């Protein structure tokens, strides 16, 4: 979480697109809604050609978002490491026709196919999320979610996290440097564990103290339980065209899967 947020804003700050238009110019609310609809669709697909097509659309979106290649790949890989364990285990846990055996454990074809399906779905969704939502400032995401009527308390939690995760990270880095400056080299011993315990403890104490100071600062400025978000998000023709296009894609994928209508 920290790594995602931390790399996020700097890595892919919303830079104005040069010439033409890209997903970055679209209304953030439309982007979020479209991603949700796309994700809900993709998890309901099963046939390989259709999943492949969905992944294809995600790749097109990813390329048109013009994200830095290296950083994006790293983020996709982060998600894939979560999935990979499941992919290795699934063939052995799912009953079905035996494909091969490892140490007398049988791997089933059904399990292998299911694992591939999950991998395709996960990657298609993550790539679409990166292309449409990952290209927003985290703060913009908060604003857009608030405009989409997400409960205020969740928005506040998110915005405070975005605001202070960097401050906490800086504090952590300063402490790490101070440890290093006094010759601390982490290894596998009690001293190391104790020292990291102190580090985490200090971070918690400092975070608590900071939260008290922030509350005081908020009180001084008349805080009455409400944060005001100011933005001027507007939906224009381009957003409607984009939304229409994505709805068309979703309809094609779903009817291909469930009505067996081959469009392609």
């Amino acid at each position: 979480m920290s790594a995602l947020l931390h790399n996020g804003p700097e890595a892919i700050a919303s830079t104005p697109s040069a010439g033409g238009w890209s997903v970055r110019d679209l209304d953030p609310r439309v982007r979020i809604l479209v991603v949700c609809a796309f994700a809900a669709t993709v998890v309901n697909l099963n046939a390989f050609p259709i999943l492949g097509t969905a992944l294809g659309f995600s790749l097109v979106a990813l390329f048109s978002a013009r994200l830095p290649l290296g950083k994006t790949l790293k983020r996709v890989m982060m998600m894939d490491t979560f999935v990979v364990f499941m992919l290795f285990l699934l063939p052995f846990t799912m009953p079905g026709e035996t494909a091969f055996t490892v140490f007398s454990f049988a791997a089933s074809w059904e399990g292998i196919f299911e694992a591939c399906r999950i991998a395709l779905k996960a990657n298609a969704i993550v790539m679409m999320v990166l292309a449409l939502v990952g290209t927003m400032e985290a703060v913009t995401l908060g604003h857009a979610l608030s405009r989409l009527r997400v409960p205020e308390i969740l928005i506040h939690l998110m915005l405070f996290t975005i605001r202070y995760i960097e401050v906490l990270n800086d504090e952590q880095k300063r402490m790490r440097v101070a440890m290093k400056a006094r010759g601390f080299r982490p290894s596998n011993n009690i001293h190391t564990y104790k020292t990291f315990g102190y580090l985490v403890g200090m971070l918690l104490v400092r975070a608590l103290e900071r939260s008290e100071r922030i509350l005081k600062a908020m009180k001084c400025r008349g805080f009455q339980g409400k944060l005001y978000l100011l933005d001027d998000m507007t939906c224009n023709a381009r957003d409607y065209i984009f939304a229409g296009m994505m709805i068309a894609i979703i309809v094609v994928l779903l009817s291909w899967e469930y009505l067996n209508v081959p469009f392609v």
Partner: protein
Amino acid sequence: MSPLFDLAGIHYAYPGHRPILNGADLQLFTGERLCLNGHNGAGKSTLLQIMTGLLKPSAGSVTAFGRERKAEADFTEVRRRAGFVFQDPDDQLFCPTVAEDVAFGPLNLGKSKDEAMAIVEATLDMLNLTSFRDRITHKLSGGEKRLVSLATVLAMEPDALLLDEPTTALDERTTERLVEILLELPQAMVVISHDPHFRHKIATRTIRLEDGAVHRPAPTCKHAKTA
């Protein structure tokens, strides 16, 4: 002329510690720039927090803007009329963007969104910060954060300012800019500062907090100014 703030015989101790304030008195008059110094841990920040009701003294009276203030509700008005600039701008700036942070105070005071935006424009313009309007607060530099902190407080149109070590971690140029801004502001202010040059430039009166009480300092070096 009645003072804006009149603190008399303030006693305070943090839980589990020795008393930090032992009968401290402080008066702030209109048009004054009162500098408050004293060694680390002398209770300077504590005194400012007592002035705004963030901490409750165990004994003594706080009179602000002509009325004695006791309950939490009494201090709501004090906090609006006395703008507190905190020592660490990261504590003060908690909104996502600069405009939202500056607008936070006015909106809490019941201003409409349009009125608040007009105040944001005017305040940022006054401090030459207009270009910062849509910046993300946590991506500002230290000096920028400090000036925006001041803007967030000025947006509430206070009658007095309480500044807790405003020059900490500022470079010379930003300090210079801060001095210019403070000298131009009409508000009375209490300024905590360890920087003798800074105090020399802005102070109309200096007091020293020692052993939990306020003293008029005897000049010990050429920077000290007792006037």
